């Protein structure tokens, strides 16, 4: 309990300090920068975020980049080693490439399933049928379940001996004369198991976002197309998809970033390490189990660069498929 109290007191002091800092910024903006009252007030109001950003995002970002060129074991001093960490990762580290491989494959394979699946489910839920409210609630449940529970539940369902997934699939196994796969214990099945698990994620937030997008498409467009004799599939391709393409873009980017950062689920599912560890798992292990902060930072930066590159690639492709409402009005 005393440590709870000490934390509580420090927790109370932080807003006081932030208010003082905001007041100081206000004075500086008014006196030194000659801003008007509203401008200075605006700066003061957003200053908690700016301070948080500088201390907990900008500085750590630069510092981890620096750390990736050093040797640091958390307690000793930091030693500059140049590109050694990266060279070691790219050449001799036997865990690095398998980790990049499984992380990328998982993200790239689960992403289209997630986005297309969520869109199809949203279209299904966009029908006016009786009891649709109840179904929407049920379809949102997977998103509500905490990751820890999701991971343990799936690990149990994937149990090789008595899991229900192998039970449901056992007729197929018999048909092809193969034994029950050890999903998380056999390196060949780990990726497949993770992708199957990711299907669970198409229900929930993505579906809700798509549903809102679908409901925003003007009815008149569909009616006009129907009069012109466009079938359901063509209406989907030429009206629905362009109209909600900004939503698709958002889902692709957020889904990709999320999938590349998979961590908690992998920690609780504990797949065999022979299949490769996800990159964030490797960052955690190198950093906090082996206390090799330099190498952990280098892995984190490789992941960051991968995310940046893929995001830029997606943005570069937007002129070809994303349709903004303003284009029409012009």
């Amino acid at each position: 309990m005393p440590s709870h109290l000490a934390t509580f007191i420090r927790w109370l002091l932080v807003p006081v300090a932030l208010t003082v800092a905001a007041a100081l910024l206000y004075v500086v903006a008014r006196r030194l920068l000659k801003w008007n009252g509203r401008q200075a007030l605006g700066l003061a109001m957003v200053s908690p975020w700016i301070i948080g950003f500088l201390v907990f995002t900008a500085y750590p970002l630069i510092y981890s980049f620096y750390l990736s060129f050093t040797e640091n074991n958390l307690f000793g001093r930091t030693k500059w080693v140049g590109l050694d960490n990266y060279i070691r990762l790219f050449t001799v580290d036997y865990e690095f490439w398998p980790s990049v491989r499984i992380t990328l494959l998982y993200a790239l394979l689960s992403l289209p399933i997630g986005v297309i699946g969520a869109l199809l489910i949203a279209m299904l839920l966009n029908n006016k049928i009786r009891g649709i409210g109840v179904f929407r609630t049920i379809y949102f449940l997977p998103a509500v379940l905490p990751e820890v529970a999701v991971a343990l539940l799936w690990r149990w369902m994937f149990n090789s001996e008595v899991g229900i997934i192998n039970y449901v699939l056992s007729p197929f196994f018999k048909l092809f004369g193969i034994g029950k796969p050890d999903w998380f214990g056999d390196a060949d099945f780990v990726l497949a198991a993770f992708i199957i698990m990711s299907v669970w994620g198409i229900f929930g937030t993505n579906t809700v976002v798509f549903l809102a997008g679908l409901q925003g498409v003007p009815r008149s467009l569909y009616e006009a197309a129907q009069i012109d004799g466009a079938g359901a599939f063509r209406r989907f391709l030429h009206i629905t998809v362009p109209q909600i393409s900004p939503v698709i873009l958002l889902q692709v980017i957020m889904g990709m970033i999320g999938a590349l950062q998979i961590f908690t689920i992998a920690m609780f599912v504990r797949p065999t390490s022979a299949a490769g560890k996800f990159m964030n798992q490797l960052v955690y292990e190198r950093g906090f189990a082996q206390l090799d902060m330099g190498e952990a930072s280098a892995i984190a930066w490789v992941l960051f660069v991968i995310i940046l590159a893929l995001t830029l690639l997606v943005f570069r492709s937007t002129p070809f498929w994303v349709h903004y409402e303003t284009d029409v009005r012009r």
Partner: protein
Amino acid sequence: MASTHAMTRRGPSSYKLMRQWYRALIYVTVIALAVVILVPFFWMLSTALQEEGDIFAWPPKWIPDPPIWRNFPDAWNAMPFNLYLGNTVYIVALGIIAELASATLVAYGFARFRFPGSEIVFLILLATMMLPFHVTLIPTYLIWQKFGLVGEFDPLVLRAWTAWGPFYIFLLRQFFLTLPRELDDAAEIDGANWLQTFVHVMLPQIRPALLAVTIFAFRGYWNDFLGPLIYLTDMKKYTMNVGMYFFMGGVNEAPQWNYLMVMSTLIALPVLVLFFVAQRYFIEGITFTGMKD
């Protein structure tokens, strides 16, 4: 799916029949998928109530017979989960309060005030949503280590005062933007200062957004695993999730699945209840921004 040409050629009666088939197909699909979603939940509960011997039955037993309710207290008492629940509630409460207070103020600042560079600052804020958490993880840890606060709850709750979640700021700002300017102006003409306007005029108007942020923040803190895992070194300070991690056992240990499913059910319960109570705000919050946390 009926094509329009076929419809017109075959006349209205076959069109009606087609529509009925289509509706039936939709019903069947919607129900089938709902079952697919509910089966894992049922399986979780079913395993939680089974005896250890029955868990490993083949074919699997769907309905526990008899249901072993004792599993619930037994699993809960197998580790000091009372303590862990207390710690988790403590972190969740401090985190949500700080997050709400700071995010609301910052969002109001971004929505209603302009200063040189404010657009760029907001763009940077949006960009941080794409930043992988692990890139800043190690230096952040080193910062807290320098303050001597690793092992305390501080790294998990102090930062919330700096409006940590860019998503929350974005959501709240979008809500503020929907409010008419006349509201602010009227309050100002009545002689209210910015703080009075903010507290008495703006905050009551964005109550749905505040609720949405509260729910998201609750879920965020309740589900957090990495933070407590690296910062809490003392067993007495573990949260539910970290407790679960060690409850799961070592790499080569066979987990006790009925107990783990009990704990999974219990960990899911608060979030599930919150969802059922406040479903509207949950979904409004997501659709309003078109994003997820």
